[in-house]
């Protein structure tokens, strides 16, 4: 391993890490939105749409991101839907993440016992008030551990983006290995940069989980 090679490649990896992070964050935000909407549709049992949501969740949970990306990036342009690679990456991540987030939120919502809702109504709260003061605070607390696990999972999944020629960390590493045979240095930088991205999120996750563990009696 040579230090000068590492120093020379550092800017390349920094750029790639920023791209990974950018696409990851945008994708995760969309995933949270989709997940929230889907979870609410399923919780309030909206007719018809709820079946569509169920189909979407099954489709997205039972297929790998790589296949979804290939379909979005190479398949869809054939029927006239073409965008650039970045948007495809974000769309893929949102498609995959939406269902995982929906499951996390739904489990949180369903963990709130009916008695809580009934008590709120008997105290004269409106459905809105019940949702905001009774259901959501407890649901958020319960769904926090799976939520954080999903965030980390989705950030890890961004490594697949290299398959649709986005210049992310994986792509950069593979490129450098292929071009200059600097395998050791490239792999080292790859691991270091993923650690820089993932370790703080992982630590933050366990911190938030500990802070938000207030739902449920006696815990």
């Amino acid at each position: 391993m040579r230090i000068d090679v590492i120093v020379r490649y550092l800017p390349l990896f920094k750029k790639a890490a920023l791209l990974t992070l950018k696409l990851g964050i945008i994708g995760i935000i969309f995933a949270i939105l989709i997940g929230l909407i889907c979870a609410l549709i399923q919780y309030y049992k909206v007719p018809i749409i709820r079946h569509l949501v169920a189909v979407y969740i099954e489709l997205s949970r039972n297929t790998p991101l790589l296949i979804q990306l290939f379909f979005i990036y190479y398949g869809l342009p054939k029927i006239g839907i073409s965008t650039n690679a970045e948007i495809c990456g974000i769309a893929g991540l949102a498609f995959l993440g939406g269902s995982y987030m929906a499951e996390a939120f739904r489990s949180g919502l369903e963990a709130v016992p009916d008695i809580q809702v009934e008590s709120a109504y008997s105290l004269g709260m409106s459905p809105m008030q019940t949702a905001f003061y009774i259901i959501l605070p407890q649901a958020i607390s319960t769904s926090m551990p799976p939520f954080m696990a999903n965030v980390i999972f989705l950030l890890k999944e961004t490594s697949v983006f290299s398959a649709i020629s986005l210049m992310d960390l994986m792509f950069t590493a593979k490129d450098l290995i292929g071009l200059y045979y600097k395998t050791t240095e490239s792999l080292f930088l790859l691991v270091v940069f993923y650690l820089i991205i993932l370790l703080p999120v992982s630590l933050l996750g366990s911190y938030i989980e500990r802070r938000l563990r207030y739902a449920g009696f006696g815990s």
Partner: protein
Amino acid sequence: MPDLGLDVLLKGKNLARLLGGLGVAMRISMIAVVISIPLGIILGALMTWKNPVIKAILRVYLEVIRIMPQMVLLFLFYFGTTRAFGIDISGEMASIVVFTLWGTAEMSDLVRGALIAIPVHQYESAEALGFNRMQTYRYIIIPQTVRRLIPLSINLITRMIKTTSLILMIGVVEVLKVGQQIIEANRMVSPNAAFGIYLAIFMLYFFACWPISMLARYLENRWRV
């Protein structure tokens, strides 16, 4: 209606080739599952021991494997071992090793979680009833752990199958690669083959994983503890 390129699927032996590609992915994930489940059970049980050294070592192994994207692990193994030790392992071998390492880590965490979820009073009650250590495990702890564990490990199997799609990136010829070959071969006659083929692969993966997920959910609901 635009040409969806679905006709390519039925041409020649294309569908059979795709299924063969899926078979490669399945074989790799099944080998990894078969090795990593028993290993994971052993490591998971070891993790609940009081010995701090074993605990620390396993903890480090688990965290290192789990924080890295599986793709990075594949790269580390496929390119790294060749470079560091001069061993030339095939893409398939590298993916089996990586998925086994990863599966073992995930499985051991599931086992650990299931074991520590058993309340202490179960052990104490067993002791109070005069069960010895073996009997406690045989009649009290293992039956409860297995019920928690089976749905979770079935889910792990679907995750393994889904993750095997990544082996394309280290040059193993699996379903996506076969799909690419078919698309390239039919570039002239059927320019829209990409849509049909990738849709077909998408559905193949879905129908491989979906029944397994359903089984896991069914068992989970049935054995709700």
